Each structure stands twice: as structure tokens, then as C-alpha cells.
């Protein structure tokens, strides 16, 4: 039977915490940018302009049909480095972190766009007509009538997506960024306690995600209209 030795985890806790900060940063940036960009994409997709709407649809289909690993490779190998070098020629920014932010934000935007589109479409036509009858412009109808209600209905779905995102953020391993799991894997290599570190990382994610999904479930009960 395997003899567990958890001692090296204790000494690695400060490093693991630094990794967790990176994980949370990626998650939060991707949620905020993803929802903002996703809202724009969803609104454009539902707009009357058929060219713009087709572009938005293509964006969503493209990102949803390729693996996140491929998206990360695209951003790492092809898309981000030239743009960063062009914008900030003499930067000492952590390029891998920017790659992770950009890849997750653009990738998640396509998933958020679909959630938000469904939310917008769940608002009844009567409300739009009533708002138009009051003399509101299309933009005002969207901003003041549709989106506030749509977002309220979408909150559970948006949060569930955030839990998935937190888990997916571990894939920055592909681009060599030391997020929570990356740190755990590095420490596993340097301390030789591979088994303990991987299990510990799994347990932390499990507790984190279970807590979040319990909160989502409670919230869902409270805000159901």
C-alpha cells in the first residue's frame, strides 16, 4: 500500500496560494470580459443587420467547435505575441498571463453570448412593443427593459458557466503558466510527492466548485420568479 506523506504540501502552501491567485485572476478577467463581449455579440447576433448578425454567429460557432487546448495554442503561438510586441515594444509584462487572459476572455465570450442570447429571447415581445409604444429607441429598449430582466433570469446559468470556467482555467498548463494546478505540478516534481500534490489540487478544486454550486442552487431557489 502506498504511504502518503503530506508534509511537503504544508511547506508549499505559500506557492500554492500564489498559483491560486493566478487561477482566480484568469477566472475573474474571463468572466468580466466574457460577459461584456458576450453581451455585445448576443445583441449583434439578434440585430436586424444580417451581415453583422452572421459575423456574430460565425464567431460563436467557431469558438464553440474547437477545443480550448487549440484556442490556447492559437493565442500562444500565433495571435498574442505579435500584437503585444506591436502595442508595447519594450514591455516586461508576463506574456503567458496575457495569453491566458486573452484566450479565456475570447473563448468564454462565445459561451456567454449563447447564454445571454437565450436570456434575451426569453423576454416576451409584449414588453418590447410596450416600450416602443412609450417612444423608446431600440437601444433604450435593450438597455432599460430587456437586459435588466434577462440578466436576472440568467444569473444561475452565468454562475454555472463561471464554475466550468474555474475548472477549465487549469488548462493554462498547456501554455506553461503556473496557476494553482501548475504550481502543484511543479512542486510535485521538485519535492517528489507527485501523488499528494495532485490529490490535494483535486480536493481543493472539488471543495471550491461544490461550494460554488451549492451557492448557485440556493440563489436559484431565491430568485426564481
Amino acid at each position, binding site marked *: *500500500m*502506498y504511504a502518503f506523506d503530506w508534509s511537503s504540501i504544508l511547506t508549499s502552501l505559500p506557492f500554492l496560494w500564489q498559483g491560486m491567485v493566478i487561477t482566480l485572476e484568469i477566472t475573474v478577467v474571463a468572466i468580466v470580459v466574457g460577459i461584456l463581449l458576450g453581451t455585445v455579440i448576443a445583441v449583434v447576433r439578434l440585430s436586424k443587420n444580417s451581415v453583422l448578425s452572421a459575423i456574430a454567429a460565425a464567431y460563436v460557432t467557431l469558438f464553440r*467547435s*474547437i*477545443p*480550448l*487546448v*487549440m484556442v490556447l*495554442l*492559437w493565442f*500562444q*503561438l*500565433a495571435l*498574442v*505575441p*505579435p500584437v503585444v*510586441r506591436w502595442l508595447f515594444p519594450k514591455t516586461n509584462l508576463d*506574456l503567458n498571463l496575457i495569453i491566458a487572459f486573452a484566450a479565456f476572455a475570447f473563448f468564454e465570450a462565445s459561451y456567454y453570448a449563447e447564454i445571454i442570447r437565450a436570456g434575451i429571447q426569453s423576454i416576451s415581445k409584449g414588453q418590447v412593443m410596450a416600450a416602443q409604444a412609450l417612444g423608446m429607441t431600440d437601444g433604450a429598449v435593450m438597455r432599460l427593459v430587456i437586459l435588466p430582466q434577462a440578466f436576472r433570469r440568467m444569473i444561475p446559468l452565468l454562475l454555472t458557466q463561471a*464554475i466550468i470556467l474555474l*475548472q*477549465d482555467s*487549469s*488548462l493554462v*498548463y*498547456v501554455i506553461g503558466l503556473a496557476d494553482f*494546478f501548475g504550481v502543484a*505540478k511543479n512542486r*510535485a516534481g521538485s519535492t517528489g510527492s*507527485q*501523488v499528494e500534490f*495532485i*490529490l490535494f*489540487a*483535486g480536493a481543493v*478544486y*472539488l471543495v471550491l*466548485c*461544490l461550494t460554488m*454550486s451549492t451557492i448557485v442552487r440556493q440563489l436559484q431557489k431565491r430568485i426564481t420568479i
Partner: protein
Amino acid sequence: MWFDFRSDALLAVLDFSVFLSPSPEAGTNYLTYLLGGALWTVILSVLNWVIAFVIGSVIGVFRTLPSPTLSKVGACYVEIFRNIPLLVQLFIWFNVVPEWLPGFGPWFKHLPSFWQQFTSATLCLGLFTGARIAEQVRSGLRSLGRDQYGAGLALGLNIRQVYNLVLLPVAYRIIIPTLTSEFLNLIKNSAVASTIGFVELARRSESMAELKSTVFEALLAGTLLYGVINLIVLFFSRALERSTKLPGLLGAQK
């Protein structure tokens, strides 16, 4: 490694002749190298689908059974496999389980590394996707309500017969569209196997990008191949959906 690439990478003209140059795998050029990767992606996905379908059906049924123990077992399974990142699960199967599972460990360590990667990826993706299919099967069974279950029992069938003969055949047909998207997810998730070195499509397009420094060509080809696989799956699932349509439901009227 990013700074190795030409600064005019964005402006570089695509050079498709690179696909005909010999790849690291003996006797192949880069085109067949990538196609081989795509084939492993498909093999891995199909095999995992079979495993996931069996596990998902069993666990999904467990969660709807009257027995509180079995439905708790089902719920635990789903919560555990859905709340740990796929990447972490993969490393658990690759690095952790062979260390302490008696019997499995020695056998696993004697495999060539390719088959170690393949075994880990199969166990990981199969069990992970199983949890997701269990949720689909459960919601399919839930959507049938209690009437058919009661009617089956009233006819003298036992619970096993009610599930096998009455509930499951209908539930599967209802959830075919969601199962399709789950299969597409599985294909995408299989790219995670590249992190333990399994030579599937994502891994091979990455190697090609780095070995030949033809980033755009390699990533474009990988992305297109994923697109083609997706389209083929969608084509077959539409056909399946048409031939298994349930008469009397909204979907059947089209």
C-alpha cells in the same frame, strides 16, 4: 518559446508545401501525420463514448431509482466527476492511481508509454463523460414523469423490465440532441490528452507548429480537421435523430 517566431508571422504567406515534407513519424508527411492525429482523436472519442454511455446509463438510472442508497451513490459519482477539472482528473489517472492501486500499478508501468497515455486518457475521459451523460439520462427519464413507470409496474413488469422495455427506449430517443452535443464536447475534451503527451490532433498540430515553425499552417490544419470531425458527427446525429423520431412529440411534426 514565443520569441522564436518570426516577428512578421502575422504577415507571412501561408506555405502549404510544408504538408508534403516528411514528418518525425517514419514514412509519413505532415498531412498524413495530422490525419493520423485526427484518427487517434476519433478512436479515443468513440471508445470513450462507449464507456461513458454504459456508465452514464447505469448512474443516470441509479439517480431515478426508489432506493435512496443507489440514488446517493449516483449523486456522489456525478458531483465528484463534475467538480474536479478534467486536467486534474487526467493526472490522477496518469500519475496517482498507478501508484496505489494494487494490481493495476505494475501492469500499467510495464506498458509502453503510448499505451500508458492511451489507458489513462480512456479511463479519465470515459468516467468524466459518464457523469455528464448520467445527468442527461436522468433528465430524460425525469421528463417521462411517473405515469409510465406506474403503468409498467401495474402491468406486472419488475423494475428492471420497466426501465429496459418502457422508460429507457423512450428516454434515449428524447435526449439524442443533447447526447450529440455531449459527444462533440467529448471530442473537444479529448484534446486534453495532449498534456500527457498522447499524440492526438491538438498535440500533433502543436508539434508541427514548433518543429517546422509553420505556426499558421499547422494550427489552421488542426482547427479545420476538428471542424470536419464536428460536421461528420452532426451529419450522422441528424440522420439518427430523423430515424428515431418519437411520433406525437413536437419534434416529429417537422
